[in-house]
């Protein structure tokens, strides 16, 4: 597999994304809301009663960090759906598949295009979030809460793994969808298990400590490997051309 070929496809797709208002909004809105909105919540929540207590703040900030995991599972579905179903709509699969590029180079190229922008947006947003959250909580806590191991694991391990999972799932659902929005709706199902983990942590069923995050990472990695098998199987040249179009 030649990564240079995959990169040509990826840069073309990224160029298309930045010209589509819908994908740009998706990439900007969520990180903006989480990066700026959540620190504002920390600043103003319980303001009448002197703000959130130093005992509650770390729990809430860890929970907020988990939003980045949800974002990592959600945002790539928007791009992956456009990347794959968009080719169907433009009817551009035939000339593309007639070019000297292998199925795996094409799949990797499309995956890179759906991976880099959301993960970059999440990283930029997380830096804003950490700086602002530290600013508004420093007086109460007496120290800068971020960065810490929890958000480090979420951003550096769990978020990329979730993004990959989301892309692989999108490849599978896109093979059967004829409209990017429909593919996105089906693609968003992948966020349900991650949201379930968040809810479980909120109701106290699990605690999002380092050990639990490693276990979740292991589970997502296993799911990545399984879905990789199915996504590559659904991404075969002849299958794409005769059944996708």
């Amino acid at each position, binding site marked *: 597999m030649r990564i240079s*070929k995959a990169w040509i496809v990826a840069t*073309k797709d990224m160029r*298309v994304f930045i010209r589509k208002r819908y994908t740009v909004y998706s990439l900007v809105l969520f990180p903006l809301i989480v990066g700026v909105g959540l620190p504002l919540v920390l600043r103003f929540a319980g303001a009448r009663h002197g703000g959130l207590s130093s005992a509650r703040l770390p729990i809430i900030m860890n929970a907020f960090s988990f939003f980045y995991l949800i974002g990592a599972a959600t945002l790539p579905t928007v791009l992956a759906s456009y990347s794959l179903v968009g080719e169907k709509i433009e*009817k551009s699969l*035939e*000339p593309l*598949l*007639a*070019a000297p590029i292998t199925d795996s180079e094409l799949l990797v190229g499309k995956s890179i295009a759906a991976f880099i922008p959301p993960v970059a947006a999440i990283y930029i947003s997380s830096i804003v979030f950490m700086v602002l959250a530290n600013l508004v909580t420093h007086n109460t806590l007496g120290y800068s809460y971020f960065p810490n191991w929890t958000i480090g694991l979420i951003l550096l391990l769990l978020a990329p793994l979730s993004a990959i999972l989301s892309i692989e799932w999108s490849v599978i659902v896109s093979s059967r969808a004829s409209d990017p929005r429909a593919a996105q709706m089906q693609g968003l199902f992948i966020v349900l298990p991650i949201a379930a983990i968040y809810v479980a942590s909120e109701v106290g069923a699990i605690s999002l400590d380092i050990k639990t995050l490693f276990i979740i990472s292991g589970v997502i990695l296993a799911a990545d490997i399984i879905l990789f098998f199915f996504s590559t199987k659904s991404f075969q040249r002849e299958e794409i051309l005769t059944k996708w179009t």
Partner: protein
Amino acid sequence: MITVENLTKRFGEVTAVENLTFKVEEGEVFGFLGPNGAGKTTTIRMLCCLISKTSGEARIGDYQIGKGTDSLQIRKMIGLVPDNVGLYSDLSAFENLDFYGKLYECPEMLRRENIERFLKMLGLWDRKDARVGSFSKGMKQKLALARSLVHEPKMLFMDEPTANLDPESAKMVRDFILELKKQGRTIFLNTHNLDEAQRICDRIGILKTKLLTIGSPEQLRESLTRPKTEIRLAQVNEALVSALKKLIPNKINVSGDKLIIDVTDPDKENPTIIAAITLNGGQVREVTQLVPTLEDVYLQIVKETE
């Protein structure tokens, strides 16, 4: 350059293409004619290594279709103009061509030169930075042609390149294909347009799942249809027709004030026929030699298979 032997493609129970055998020589323009669903696109897709064959063999140059590493080599040396242009509407004309040039590993300098050359040839250079989504159908088709050429392929596959175009755009595309023909490129052309096939192609294959016939437009016309002489008279009556039938052995059809008569050798037979008409009181107003068109040949062949 293209060698096809007993090539067959089945989709489940449906046979799309059966036992195709033909050759296309280097520099030749070969046309595939056939009704919808005849297997023309399936054949192009197999030859471009887009779909697998069920059985048979096909070679493009020294490479065999359906053979792992050969497929990539074949895709490198060919250009494809599919029936749907398949351009990226959010990218500019230049970006579309540049993307494909890179995929085909065309060096940057050559790529830029070719993009400029082909866009200028097709009258699109002024719109090189415009979004393709704002282009007309004809402009898109021309851009698809430029895309297929940006890496300077030895061989071009075109799937109905003038379908759905207005007459002016269709003519420009046709003229461009003729220009490519002059440059000595091998072109495999699927078309519904018989006039286009007749004007552009060196040889034509008529396909309806099976290859029904193959030859140059002239060969097909000569082998399958007889020339006809059309004679317009002042008046046609039954007595004259019956008298003529007794005098000449040729098949006679009456159409209004015209007699359409099958002939083998017009130069020899026409004077005899005219003499027979005047002898029986007929007044000849006009004599026209009807040359069978490719359409006549095509319709006859396709009709025979039904």
